[in-house]
C-alpha cells in the first residue's frame, strides 16, 4: 500500500498546477486514481472479511440466532403445543434452579463426563502413541480404531443395552460365570454411569486417537533420534517429548470432549425405555432433563432456561479446562 499510494501522489502533484490546459484530463486522472486508490485500500482491508464472512453469516443464522431466540423463549411462558404466553422474566430460571431434578441432572452429567472424558483422552493418547510406531499393516489398524465412530449412537445404545442387562446381560453372565456378584447396571447410580461412559468411550476414543496421531506425525523425527542417543526409552520419549509437543492438540481434544461430554444425550436416553434416566433419574443428564421439560412436561420456556444454564456451565468448564491445561504445560516448562 505504501509504495503504490506515494507513486500516485507524485503524478498528481506534478501535473496539477503546471499546465492549466491539460488540467481537465489530468484532474480526471487524479480523480480516477484517487478512486482506484480508495478501491485498492478497500480491497486490501475488506476482502479478507468478505472471504471469511460465509462462515460468520452461517454462524449468525444457525448459532447466534438460536442462542438469542432461546434466550427470548426462556423469559416467557411457552408451551410446546400452545406456543408463546406471557412474559415471565427470570421465573423459568428460578423454577429450574428450584427443581431438585435439575441438580440431580447436573451431578449425573458431571459424573458421566468425568468417567468418560478422562479415560477417553488418556487411552486415546496411548493408542495414538502405539499407532505412531512401525506397526505391520499400519493403515488397517488406523482405520479400524475409527470404526466405532461410524456406528450410529442409537445402535450403540441398543447393543450396549443388551450387554449391560441387569439380569440377562452379557457382562453379568460373565461375572457370574467366574463367581462374582452381578452388577445392577440400570439400577445403581455409579454402575449406570460407568455403563453409559463406556458407550461414549467406545465411540469417541478412536476418533480422538486419530487426531492425536495426526499431531504426533508432525513431531520432527530427529528429536527422537537425539533423545534415543541420550538414552531415553520409548516410554520416556512418549511422556517427556511426544505429549508436551502435541499440547495444542491435547488442549483441542480436551475442550471438544468437554463440550460433547456435557451434552451427552443419546446414550443415557436409550439406556431404558421410559427415557427419564432410570426409576430414580439416576442417569438423567442435563440434556435429557431439558428434553423432559420440553417434550414430556411440554414447557419450552423452562427447557430454554435449562439450555442457557447448560451453555453457561459449558463455558465455565471449558475455561477451567483451558486454565488447567495451560498450567500443566507451563509447569513442565514447554512453550507452545
Amino acid at each position, binding site marked *: 500500500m505504501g509504495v503504490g499510494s506515494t507513486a500516485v501522489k507524485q503524478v498528481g502533484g506534478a501535473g496539477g498546477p503546471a499546465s492549466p490546459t491539460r488540467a481537465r484530463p489530468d484532474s480526471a486522472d487524479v480523480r480516477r486514481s484517487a478512486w482506484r486508490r480508495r478501491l485498492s485500500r478497500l480491497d486490501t482491508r475488506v476482502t479478507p472479511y468478505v472471504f471469511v464472512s460465509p462462515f460468520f453469516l452461517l454462524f449468525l443464522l444457525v448459532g447466534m440466532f438460536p442462542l438469542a431466540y432461546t434466550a427470548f423463549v426462556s423469559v416467557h411462558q411457552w408451551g410446546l*403445543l400452545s406456543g*408463546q404466553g406471557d412474559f415471565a422474566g427470570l421465573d423459568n430460571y428460578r423454577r429450574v434452579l428450584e427443581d431438585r431434578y435439575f441438580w440431580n441432572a447436573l451431578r449425573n452429567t458431571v459424573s458421566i463426563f468425568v468417567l468418560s472424558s478422562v479415560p477417553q483422552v488418556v487411552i486415546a493418547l496411548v493408542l495414538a502413541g502405539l499407532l505412531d510406531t512401525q506397526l505391520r499393516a499400519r493403515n488397517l489398524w488406523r482405520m479400524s480404531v475409527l470404526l466405532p465412530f461410524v456406528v450410529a449412537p442409537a445402535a450403540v445404545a441398543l447393543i450396549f443395552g443388551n450387554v449391560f442387562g441387569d439380569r440377562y446381560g452379557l457382562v453379568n453372565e460373565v461375572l457370574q460365570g467366574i463367581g462374582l456378584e452381578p452388577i445392577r447396571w440400570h439400577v445403581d447410580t455409579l454402575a449406570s454411569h460407568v455403563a453409559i461412559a463406556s458407550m461414549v468411550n467406545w465411540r469417541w476414543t478412536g476418533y480422538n486417537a486419530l487426531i492425536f496421531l495426526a499431531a504426533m506425525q508432525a513431531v520432527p523425527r530427529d528429536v527422537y533420534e537425539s533423545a534415543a542417543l541420550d538414552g531415553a526409552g520409548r516410554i520416556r520419549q512418549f511422556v517427556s517429548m511426544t505429549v508436551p509437543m502435541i499440547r495444542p492438540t491435547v488442549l483441542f481434544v480436551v475442550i471438544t470432549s468437554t463440550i460433547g461430554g456435557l*451434552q451427552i444425550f443419546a446414550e443415557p436416553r436409550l439406556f431404558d*425405555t421410559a427415557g427419564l434416566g432410570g426409576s430414580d433419574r439416576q442417569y438423567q443428564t442435563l440434556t435429557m432433563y431439558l428434553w423432559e421439560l420440553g417434550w414430556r*412436561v411440554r414447557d419450552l420456556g423452562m427447557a*430454554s432456561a435449562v439450555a442457557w444454564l447448560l451453555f453457561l456451565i459449558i463455558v465455565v468448564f471449558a475455561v477451567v479446562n483451558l486454565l488447567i491445561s495451560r498450567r500443566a504445560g507451563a509447569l513442565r516448562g514447554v512453550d507452545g
Partner: protein
Amino acid sequence: MQTSKSRRVRLATSALLALTLATTAAACGGSDDEGTTADGKIKLTVATFNEFGYEELIEEYNAMQDEVVVEQKKAGTANEHQDNLYTKLAAGSGLSDIEAVEVDWWAALMEQADAFEDLSDPEVEGRWLDWKTEAATTDDGRLIGYGTDIGPEGICYRADLLEKAGMPTDREEVAKMFTTWDDYFEAGRQFVKKVPDVAWYDSSGATAQAMINQTEYSFEDEDNNVIAAENPQVKEVFDTVTALSEEGLSTQLVQWAEDWTASFQNDGFATMACPGWMLGVIEGNAEGVEGWDIANVFPGGAGLWGGSYLTVPTQGDHVEEAKELAKWLTAPEQQLKAFDAKFTFPSQVEALEDPGLLDHTSPFFNDAPTGQILADRAEAIEFIPHKGPKYADINTAFQQAIQRVDEGKESPEDAWQSFLADVERLG
C-alpha cells in the same frame, strides 16, 4: 392466530434443538421426501408402535391399487411413538400421513384436535362401539380418529410352570382360581413357595396398570382435576403391588425393558395380565417356548388395557389419500385380519359378531379359543376408565415409583412421597 402461534413454536423448537443438540447428533430419521416415489406414485406412511398386525394388510393395499405406495414406520414402544408425535406436532412437520394414537394419551391429543383431520364420513357411521367413537369426537362434532383395536384382558399363563408347582393347568380350572385379585395373589404366594426361582407375574408395573385400568376415575376426576394424590384406590394399588413385590411375586423387571423381553425366554414368570394385543407380543418374545395358554378370566371382573386409533394429521401432503387408507385399514374385514396376525381385538361392531373371530383359535396358546375368550372378556366390561389429558404423564410417574421400590432404591413410603412430589411437579 393459530398459524403464527405454531410458527413461533416451530421457531422455538428448532432454536432449542439447534442450540443444545448441535454436536450430539441425535440420530433422528429425517422425513424428507416429497411424498412421491420414483415412478410418480404417492407415498403414504403409517406410523404405529408395538404390533398392529398391519404388515400383510399394507402389502394387500399396495397390490390392489396403483395410486399410492404405503410404508409402515414401527416404533418399539408406545412411549417412543408418543415422543416422536409430540415433537413433530410442535414442529409442524415431519409426521407420517397416518399416526396411531394409544388411548392412554388420547385425551391429551384431543386438546390439539385442530392438528388432525376431521374423519367423519357417512360411510363409517356405526362402524365402532359407541364409546370408542364418542371418545374420538370433539365437542363440535368432529371425528378425529378411527378406532383400531380395544384391549379386553385375560390372564395368560405358562401351564408347564403351574404344573411344576402342582397347580391345575387346564384353562377352565385355572380360570376358577383367578376370579378376584386376592385369589390371584394367593395362588401366586403358593406358587413362589413351590417354585422359588420363578416369579408369579411379569412386572409390578404391569399388574398395577391392570388394576388402575379397573378404576373408573384413577388419576383424574370427571372434570380432569388431578386426584392421584388423594384417591384411596390409587394408594391401595400402590400398597398392594409393592407389598407383593417384597413377597417375591414380581420379576421386579420393567415392562418393555431388555431384561423383561429376555425373561420370556428364561422362565422368568408364570402368569401375566394380557390384553388382546399382548398375545402378539408374547408370541414374539416367547418364540420357541412351549406351555403358554390363556384363561377366560380376569381378576376383579374385567379390564381394558390399551387399544388405539388411527389419525390423519392435517400437516400431511396427501390427507385425502390418507383418509381413504385409514378408512380401509379400520374396516371390519381388515381388522379381523390384523387380529389373525397379532391379536389386536376389534373395536368394530360388525367384526365382533363375525364367526371368523369367535372361532379363532391359537396354536401357540395351546389351541385356546382366543377369539371367544377375548370376546367374553370384552363382554364383561362394565365401564370405560376415564383418562384425562394428564393420564399418561402421571402414569409414567406412578410406574417409576413402583419401579423404585422394586429396585430397592426407595422404601414404599418414600417412593409414594416422591410420587406425590412428581404429581405436584406435573402441575
